[in-house]
């Protein structure tokens, strides 16, 4: 039974789609909005789509890096993430007390009192976007080679935005290609991926639209940052209707950061100029959900052409 207050039509649609995914066994609920287990079928779709990305992008010779879903706290602090997205960040805290503190912890837990306030920050922060560990790693290598750097990353990411919308998870996977180089190199990269991304998604018989977008920056200052990002055409998203036709979901994003990360991490081109960066990101669960929404929950009944693209 649903005891929630009545939502908007969009929220009701999102909740209904989530409930259907859970009933079909594709998502496994945990009792926390935005935190789900995935079934074998769901995971197979994610893995096949991940391979499809490599089919389209693998020949570019990207340096493959796989990081766990945590970034070093000192790198996170330097990344400037808290300036723009303090509301989305998740820090990892742990018990660091002695035996007496342990007894106190257990007593408070037993009595239903607040116990988390005595947890202490660790040196690990949950990864907010798969590319965050890339910039300090590339910076460590010194000046870039003449053709820049291209990196392939894939990680679970965390964003604190609990939602009924199954397409807005708190822990989700993001595959990315990240380009570091001259402004021309990274703009070429981004334009190539806008075209490729559209063709890739159309090969899955999904209804796509590419549109100008902005990041969910925090507060009034954030509205200024968002307007500025739009004015300069820095972010585009590939949108697909998932839980709502009126509010389609961003499944891929194409981002030009200008010299933002170059200045932060002192990334340099061979001639000493501050490097620019761009990335293309794939929201893996969102793409899987788009496929389930448009082709049904039974993957064996998906259109033959789509099955051929994913399963060969």
């Amino acid at each position: 039974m649903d005891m929630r207050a009545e939502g908007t039509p969009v929220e009701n649609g999102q909740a209904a789609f989530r409930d259907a995914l859970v009933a079909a066994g594709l998502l496994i609920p945990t009792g926390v909005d935005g935190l789900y287990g995935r079934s074998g079928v769901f995971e197979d779709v994610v893995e096949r789509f991940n391979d499809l990305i490599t089919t389209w992008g693998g020949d570019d010779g990207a340096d493959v890096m796989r990081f766990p879903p945590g970034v070093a706290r000192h790198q996170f602090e330097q990344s400037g993430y808290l300036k723009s997205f303090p509301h989305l960040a998740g820090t990892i805290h742990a018990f660091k007390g002695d035996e007496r503190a342990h007894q106190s912890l257990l007593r408070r837990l037993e009595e239903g009192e607040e116990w988390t306030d005595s947890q202490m920050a660790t040196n690990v922060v949950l990864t907010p976007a798969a590319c965050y560990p890339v910039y300090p790693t590339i910076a460590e290598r010194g000046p870039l080679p003449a053709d820049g750097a291209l990196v392939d990353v894939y990680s679970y990411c965390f964003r604190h935005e609990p939602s009924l919308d199954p397409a807005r998870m708190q822990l989700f996977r993001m595959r990315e290609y990240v380009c570091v180089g001259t402004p021309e190199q990274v703009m070429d990269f981004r334009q190539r991926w806008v075209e490729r991304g559209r063709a890739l998604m159309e090969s899955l018989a999904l209804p796509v639209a590419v549109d100008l977008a902005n990041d969910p920056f925090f507060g009034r200052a954030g509205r200024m940052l968002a307007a500025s990002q739009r004015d300069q055409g820095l972010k585009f998203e590939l949108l697909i209707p998932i839980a709502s036709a009126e509010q389609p979901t961003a499944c891929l994003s194409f981002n030009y950061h200008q010299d933002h990360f170059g200045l932060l991490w002192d990334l340099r081109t061979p001639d000493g100029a501050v490097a620019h960066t761009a990335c293309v990101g794939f929201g893996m669960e969102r793409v899987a959900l788009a496929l389930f929404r448009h082709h049904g929950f039974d993957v064996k009944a998906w259109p033959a052409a789509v099955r051929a693209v994913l399963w060969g």
Partner: protein
Amino acid sequence: MRQPDWQIAAGAAPRGGEAPAVSAADIRALLADSGGLATDAATLSDEDDLYAAGLTSHGSVNLMLALEERYGVEFPEHLLRRRTFESIAAIRAAVAGLLLDGAPGGLEAG
């Protein structure tokens, strides 16, 4: 919050008339403190492109907050745009407009 200086200037100005004093020198000083420019703010003309002079998006946010504090105004949604802060002259015009809107006997009374 500190009493904004403009109220003195506004009191001396004809009601509903000219914009209260917003000096380019004041804006230049705020720009030097909070804009994070690559260029010395003192060398910029009123019309120079501040973004070309190294004003970043985060720098323009800091500048906006500093202007709000200095003049006791709040930039409304439609002014939270890149072009509002593109030059010292543009900033002067925007702040003067906000002061007129908010001044007793200002636009809404005229």
